[in-house]
């Protein structure tokens, strides 16, 4: 064992380590500068003109340097990521990290104190709020539709009633050409194929909205399974988050599952019409999702916690929709974070609405938006308001 050989080896190892570290060290710092300086200008060029015509005096966020960590629903993830990306063009020094881990974990992390804000499609329960102790605002951001989608390449158009859906997810209807489905779809040639149910396997606000709907249309579902973030599924396979469910459906012929609208449409998966309480079959889209919220506007509670599932009236209402909220504490401790957070939320609720429509999320009804903005002005740092509405 000669010394020279040893030295060679050590040298080589060192060299190799350098090679691996090179992308981190060599190009590492440079790209940060790029993302912080160059990228915004690129973004600004594309993002500014779009939003400029909409509001006459474009909103200028206060100059702060902040990092915000957040986690929550995967339901609004596409729009949140879009907002965060565009917002870099407006406020280059604010880095927001939103991880789509599911509503359940979103609330857990937020109430556990490990995130600056949380995202959820199921509003926090009284119990959760009580345990947390401090005042929490639910700031609604967009309205989304939970669509039922399936994988049957030859089937062009199909529609469901709530009862049928419940029976499929209960495992009572197991074939695509079952009489219950056939009765609702006269003239449609249904394949003789087994149904594979795909559901969420993690704690999910999308699940909460969907099971809430099934409970509202089926007594059987209500007693056997019930409502919640994660329930005991009688049949089917589980996928992680909205993406996992969509992927499992895509991979499985004969599968049926539920996801947020954009996850289906961007995947070219079908979004069948669902029978609403007025007895009409309605397809999910911007108008029918917005319509779902309208019936609840008058009875909107002050804390903005409301379910808009299966509204009793309205012919053009899509029955499985919901608000998605951002959870923030009323008393903020960190001034820069509070400034960055409120500015971002204001920007999202005003200039960001256009992005939302492009991704299939219905913007908030005007009255709800006003209430949401009002909540922003009530956020405080050390007793002083963290945000004032621009005149």
């Amino acid at each position, binding site marked *: *064992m000669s010394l020279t*050989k*040893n030295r*060679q*080896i*050590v040298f*080589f*190892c060192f060299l*190799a380590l350098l090679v*691996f*570290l090179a*992308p*981190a060290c060599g*190009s*590492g710092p*440079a*790209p*940060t500068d*790029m*993302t912080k300086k160059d990228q915004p200008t690129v973004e600004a060029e594309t993002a500014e003109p779009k939003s400029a015509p909409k509001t006459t005096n474009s909103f200028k966020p206060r100059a702060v340097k902040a*990092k915000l*960590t957040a*986690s929550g629903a995967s339901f609004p993830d*596409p729009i949140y*990521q*879009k907002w*965060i*990306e565009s917002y870099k063009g407006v406020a280059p020094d604010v*880095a*927001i*990290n*939103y*991880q789509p*881990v599911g509503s359940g974990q979103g609330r857990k*992390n937020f109430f*556990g*104190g*490990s995130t600056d804000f949380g995202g959820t499609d199921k509003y926090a329960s009284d119990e959760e709020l009580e345990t947390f102790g401090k005042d929490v605002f639910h700031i609604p951001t967009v309205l989304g539709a939970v669509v039922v989608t399936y994988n049957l390449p030859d089937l062009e158009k199909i529609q469901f009633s709530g009862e049928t859906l419940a029976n499929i997810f209960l495992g009572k209807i197991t074939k695509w050409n079952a009489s219950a489905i056939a009765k609702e779809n006269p003239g449609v040639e249904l394949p003789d194929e087994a149904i594979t149910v795909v559901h969420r396997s993690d704690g999910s606000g999308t699940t909460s909205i969907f099971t809430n709907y099934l409970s509202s249309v089926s007594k059987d579902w209500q007693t056997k399974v019930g409502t919640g973030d994660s329930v005991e599924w009688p049949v089917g396979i589980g*996928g*992680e*988050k909205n*993406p*996992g469910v*969509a*992927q499992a*459906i*895509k991979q499985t012929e004969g599968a049926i599952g539920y996801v947020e609208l*954009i*996850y289906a*449409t*961007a*995947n*070219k998966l079908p979004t069948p019409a669902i029978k609403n309480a007025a007895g009409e079959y309605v397809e999910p889209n911007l108008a029918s999702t917005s319509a779902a919220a309208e019936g609840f506007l008058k009875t909107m509670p002050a804390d903005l916690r409301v379910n808009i599932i299966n509204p009793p009236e309205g012919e053009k209402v899509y029955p499985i929709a919901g608000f998605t909220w951002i959870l923030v504490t009323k008393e903020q401790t960190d001034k820069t974070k509070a400034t960055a957070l409120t500015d971002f939320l204001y920007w999202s609720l005003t200039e960001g609405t256009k992005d939302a429509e*492009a*991704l*299939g999320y219905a913007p908030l009804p005007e009255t709800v938006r006003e209430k949401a903005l009002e909540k922003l002005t009530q956020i405080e740092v050390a007793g002083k308001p963290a945000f004032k509405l621009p005149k």
Partner: protein
Amino acid sequence: MITQASNYKQRKIVDQFMRGLMVGATILALIPLFLILGYVIFRGASSLSLAFFTEAYKAPQMSLTGDVQSAGGVLHGIVGSILIVGASLLFALPIGILAGVFLAEYPANSVATTVRFATDVLSAAPSIVVGVVAYILIVQRTKQFSGLAGSVALAVLMIPVITRTTEEILKLVPHTVREAAIALGTPKWKTTFTVVLPAATSGIVTGALLAFARATGETAPLLLTVLGNNNLGYSLLEPLAALPLLTYKYTEMPFPELNDLAWGTALVLTGLVLSVNLLARWATRSRLK
């Protein structure tokens, strides 16, 4: 038994058959290896570009009509992985090496036997269980997902690898070397640090590299501890991205364009892990010659 099996032809057939079976088994085992590496390399290579290494996450362009375009790269994952695993190496190296020295220099006592057994237990502990412990002890206590919590979990997984390699390699250092030093009046600690450990450097480096490789590919503990980060981050006290987490995330995406990112990330990850492994092997082999 054999004397009774007098039918030579039949015995010969059995022999040939079993030989065939063994060759077949070996080939069968190599098929998935080539399939996995082949897919990762070919599908991964097609999604690689310079931007893939120099840019962090960017929101994919999506529209209702079904056009999805992936954008950005995995620089945040590369940086995050190196930071997390690097830090865990810093934790694990001193503990692992010194515990290994203990086992090699004081091998025959009940404490050493217990330590050796504990090392085995640690190396067999499911990584998710270690993740659960880091989650309870660090994430929940500090109320903060952080790269550091991930590092601690990975360090626990690395320690047994380093300890065992150090012990094995120190045992290979001839006793005569130690005796020569001690005969000159060198104290034991000085012998160990100036004579024995340097002679075993390459072996310890091998152990460290193997531990590095194992930890880089670990996903489960990170799932519970580092949360993930879409921005390029350099602080271990904050949530960080990591290559295996990104591979998982992009795999579960329903959009083929983002699945391509998964293959690309997988290629970077596999490349990193396998080349560190090769390096480790190369180091040992030349030492043993």
